[in-house]
């Protein structure tokens, strides 16, 4: 009994935090399974009836298109950014040259930059290049703004690869690119997956650039599409909740499948082992 009494406050706190973090998800999913009538009658009941109608109707109303767009834009951007950041990280972390430190700092400084201070020129540039309101408009800024954190993480990992391996490869006749491609990259698996996950989740949820550079509904990414939904169907709460649940599902699913990797990826450069 004394034992239990001692732990009681701990359990209360743990449960309080559980409700605080978890309840909104419960509310979202529970509401998404209701019909409109049920929602207005009993907005807080956890389970009334389970119907997936809302899910099918939001998918038909354009959510599928948003999904496709988001997948396309974020995957293309992430693959590109991982590759070009790895390329740039190689000389930055493993070669001595005069502007090395300066160049590194210029790249890293991008992490603190408010996106707003680049918004208007990017908007103008996109219009001049005549790619405004296309997927292409998003890919450029997405890549550019993912470069700083990617280089920051990748250079840290690359520095730790022993010089001896590189020297051995060079004696065997490898050029710098050969060393990079055959020696360095194969050893960067964990770092590359960290960078990949970090950027993928951040671009999957990116909003400002999409808001400024995309206007037609059929080209919208998921976050922008959700906001658009809200404007059009603000009365249909269960429908909107179904859309929110669907939109959150991919990241949550990946998280449930490989929790460790996602957590490590999201903590990015902040957690080193």
């Amino acid at each position: 009994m004394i034992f239990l009494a001692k732990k009681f406050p701990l359990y209360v706190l743990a449960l309080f935090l559980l409700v605080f973090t978890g309840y909104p998800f419960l509310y979202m999913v529970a509401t998404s399974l209701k019909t409109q009538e049920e929602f207005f009658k009993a907005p807080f009941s956890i389970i009334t009836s389970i119907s997936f109608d809302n899910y099918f109707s939001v998918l038909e109303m354009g959510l599928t298109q948003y999904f496709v767009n988001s997948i396309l834009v974020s995957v293309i951007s992430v693959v590109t950014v991982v590759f070009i950041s790895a390329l740039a990280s190689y000389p930055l972390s493993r070669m001595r040259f005069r502007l090395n430190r300066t160049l590194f700092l210029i790249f890293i400084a991008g992490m603190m930059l408010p996106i707003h201070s680049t918004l208007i020129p990017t908007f103008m540039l996109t219009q001049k290049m005549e790619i405004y309101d296309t997927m292409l408009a998003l890919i450029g800024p997405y890549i550019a703004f993912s470069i700083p954190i990617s280089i920051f993480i990748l250079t840290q990992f690359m520095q730790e690869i022993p010089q001896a391996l590189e020297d051995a490869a060079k004696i065997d006749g490898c050029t710098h690119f050969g060393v990079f491609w055959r020696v360095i990259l194969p050893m960067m698996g964990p770092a590359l997956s960290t960078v990949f996950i970090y950027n993928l989740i951040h671009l999957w949820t990116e909003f400002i650039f999409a808001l400024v550079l995309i206007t037609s509904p059929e080209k919208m990414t998921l976050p922008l599409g959700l906001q658009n939904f809200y404007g059009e169907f603000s009365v249909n709460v269960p429908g909107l909740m179904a859309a929110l649940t669907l939109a959150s599902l991919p990241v949550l699913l990946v998280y449930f499948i490989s929790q460790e990797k996602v957590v490590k990826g999201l903590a990015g450069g902040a957690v080193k082992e």
Partner: protein
Amino acid sequence: MQKELQIDAKPQVKVGTSVKVKRNQWNKLLTISLFVAPAFIIYAIYVIYPIFATFNYSLHEWNSMQSEKTFIGFANYVELFNDQIFWTALKNNFLVVFISVFVQIPLGLVMALMLFAPIRGIKLFNTIYFMPFLMSTVAIGLLWVFMFDPINGTMNQLLRMLGVEKWQVAWLSEESTAMWSVLLVIVWQFAPFYMILFKAGIVGIPEELYEAAQIDGANKWKQFTHITFPLLMPTIVSSSILAIVGSLKTFDLFYIMTGGGPNNATELMGTYMFKQAFQIFDMGYASTIAFMMFFIAFIVVAIIQVMETQRRKKGGYL
């Protein structure tokens, strides 16, 4: 692939060593440029150039995209410093910074400590606690708009259940509560992130320290204040830096939930800039706000850097 090697391998009888060194150096420079170029070019187009362009625009009167820009020097900045809304926005931005550092981070620490508490179900807690950070900010904003709904929303329902109907408020549409409501959501979203950082920090503390402390008769609280907390100081410092820099950039949640309203009560530099640029189309003035955002972030980071260097010189965290 073999190109570089061939150049080196050529018997260079007549060529002097200085030429060879020069050629080698030129080769090295070329290699470096080729490696860095793809990233640098994109970065220059979408990050470096826009900052200069924003500054240039901010020196112009430029009221719509069709009209011509007229150079007006620093007149926009004078206007900005006399703009009450800008000061409100700046104040709100710093309120977000303050709440992030003094609420989110401590809550993140508490959540991380819970994950090491001697209770059952840790795995479940761990999984659920982290979930808010995985949702997109737009989805979070929309979800909480309905949680704060005056009639059907959870918050007011909770108050009704507790029998304090009088306290029911239209959370997001009243000036006195809107800011705090959004701040609650920010805490909800980001506390899990700091939890993860602290969790990693706590795992890194050697078990022997606690064993030794127990032998010396230190209770849990003493163990926390004398071992856990001091050893987590590096994590606290880096979390605070992330929180400060991140908070100055905040936009999505406020844009979705309140749009800066009611009556500018939740205006941030970001939302104000967005309104000026893409709703009123006063591009010159919007660029001025945008450049101030850059400038403020720059100053804050510079201050942090100086403090970090000072701290390193002293060699300690406390």
